[in-house]
């Protein structure tokens, strides 16, 4: 579903991501772990076409992101670490805007908005300006906007930050549901317990380079993910 091959991204002389390769299969929930500034966000932004790689190539569902960016973007959804959404819109306006861009039919969109807005308990706030939303509400709105066009691949940067416990639980269920239906999820997190419980596969990045990648059992063996991560960080 997502193939990253020899990705290198530099900012000036600083190498943010160095020759990183990853392969995420349909049905996989793939966790991406690393310290602050390790290159997680740069990798994720490159994978969704926000940043252009200096070297390497990215394929979404077998299609080159560099050659056919629009086809690739139609298949994926991205949720950034800080959901800066359009403050000048109401929640429902923003969702309809995203729905229009992805060409989601009106009735289908309406049903999905209601489904996810009820699940995240934000339906009553959809008529309000995004400006009035808390961080968690913006995160929920960003999640709903990512889900209403039923993407095959969801790329999320710290998706649990700002969510209340119930919404975190709902999100975990939705993530598992998407993967069970053949979708794929690639997400970064600092919450290692969540990654350990949720993910089928995990990758650890350090100073822009991939340190380890594989199934959860392959990576952690009999240890906890936290101890493996801390050991690799040393």
């Amino acid at each position, binding site marked *: 579903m997502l193939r990253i091959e020899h990705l290198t991204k530099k900012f000036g002389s600083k190498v943010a991501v160095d020759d990183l390769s990853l392969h995420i299969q349909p049905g996989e929930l793939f966790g991406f772990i690393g310290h602050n500034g390790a290159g997680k966000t740069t990798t994720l932004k490159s994978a969704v076409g*926000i940043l252009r790689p200096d070297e390497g190539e990215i394929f979404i569902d077998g299609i080159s992101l560099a050659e056919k960016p*629009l086809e690739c*973007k139609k298949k994926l959804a991205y949720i950034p670490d800080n959901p*800066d959404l359009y*403050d*000048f819109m109401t929640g429902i306006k923003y969702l309809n805007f995203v729905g229009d861009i992805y060409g989601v039919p*009106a009735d289908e969109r309406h049903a999905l908005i209601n489904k996810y807005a009820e699940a995240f308990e934000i339906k009553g706030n959809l008529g309000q300006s995004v*400006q*009035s939303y808390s961080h968690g509400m913006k995160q929920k709105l960003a999640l709903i906007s990512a889900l209403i066009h039923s993407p095959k691949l969801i790329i999320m940067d710290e998706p649990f930050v700002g969510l209340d416990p119930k919404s975190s639980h709902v999100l975990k269920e939705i993530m598992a549901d998407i993967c069970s239906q053949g979708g794929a999820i690639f997400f970064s997190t600092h919450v290692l317990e969540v990654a350990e419980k949720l993910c089928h596969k995990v990758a650890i990045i350090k100073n822009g380079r991939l340190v380890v990648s594989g199934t959860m059992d392959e990576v952690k063996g009999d240890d906890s993910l936290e101890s493996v991560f801390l050991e690799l960080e040393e």
Partner: protein
Amino acid sequence: MLKALIKKQFSEYFAAYFVDRKTGKARDAKGIAMYMGIFVFALLSIGYMFFNISSQLAGPLYMQGMSWLYYSIMALMGIAIGVFGSVFNTYASLYNAKDNDLLLSMPIPAGYVLASRLLGAYTLGTIYEGVVFMPAIIADPGIRDRGAAGVILPLLLLFIIGFVVLTLTCLLGWLVALAATRVKNRNIVSVIISVILLGGYYYLWINLQKYVTLIINRADSISDALLRKAMPVYALGMGAAGDIKQFALFTVFAFVMLALTLTVMSLTFLKMVTRNRGSAKGVYKNRAAKQRSVKSALLRKELSRFLGSANYMLNGGFGLIVMIAASVILIIKPDFISKAFENAPQAVGAMPSVFACLICMMCGMNPISSPSVSLEGKNVWIPKSLPVRAYDILTAKARLQFVLNILPAEILAAVSAAVLGADLLTALFMCTAVFAFNSFFGRLGVMVNLYKPVMTWTNEVIPIKQSMSVFLGIMSGMVICALSGIAGYALSSLVPQAIILAALTAVYALAAFALDKAFKGKGTQLFETL
């Protein structure tokens, strides 16, 4: 701590001169000198305009021994310009700054935050006011008669009047903020207040010559009225004209007013900035929305952005009201043009092309597309991650400029053509020239903004009012229209107006086409690097 806050405030105001906001790197000495030079040139140009007005008043009033009245009037004008120029900036930087929460979360007394913001507002207001009052001092023929006091007192007053400007902008800004906490659609309230202010300003500007003559002819009765009903204004004028006692009186008055205002503000500042800005509850109507095309969705998003910001509406849309007002004036007073050209009948023949260029210039002074890329700010990840071509995103921004301008501009073109008595073909080409210009100018603004983006703003006033792309957009529109108008006028004795207008239409359309092509190439490339 206060020093650090003041430094932050000023670095925000003047960052464009020292830092390239696109790369985040410091400008070299040449770059700083160039940007400063443009700023100084703009100030000198406006100052020269006020010097001319001052010169008309100064001589006659000096001859009547009423230099104080001259200073009173010029100071009032300076105060009006200062307040008008800085009131919304004061509101935005005091009550609507994005870093208020951040600063108030730090161990900084609220008074320090307020003080640093006020110093910034004072500087801005004094610059605006000084652009009027400084030329007035220079134009005063009596300044040499009064010795050192005649120079020092008006110069000191320039800075003291800045405090009066600050007092008034704070009061008005406070009222706007108060309205914003109680009214659901505060953007519309801001726009209405501004339109009233701007309307008054333009009314005065149009009738300025009449008032100058009136002041000179009725200097005695006006001075008498000021003395009886507006003592501080009298003291201000007398102080500027060298009366130390009146100078001291006015200074005390100015500082007492400022102290009272600051007391009220310091008591309410914290409450104002920590209010829940989104408290107005919108109701979610649980029904399916109409599905729209990508192009329509992008245009509607741009329109929402425009309507969601009072600053954007005012700065980008005020010319729309002017065009509508101009159409109404021409309909009500169709002989307005013929009277204006009574002494230059040879110019009447060139009027269709000159008018078309004037209408284009009015459209060019509505910077809607030139800040539109910068306004994406931190939201730029949204269009970049969506399955939309950068070309469509950029075109939607250009289309908003076109869509908002085209109707009032075409109405004005049609009304002008009728009033000028243009034949059908000339009238038609007046309309096509305006149409083609708007098509071109919207794209030009977007392209300029792509080259000069400001994506890391904390206050939307920066991309809307203080960015280089808006300045360049307006200036290029004015220059293009002025050159087109001059060419039209110069050729009017050789070529029929319809041909000139058809040629202008073709030039603007070609430029629009070239920019449309550029959107697909360089424009897309620049957008992807944001």
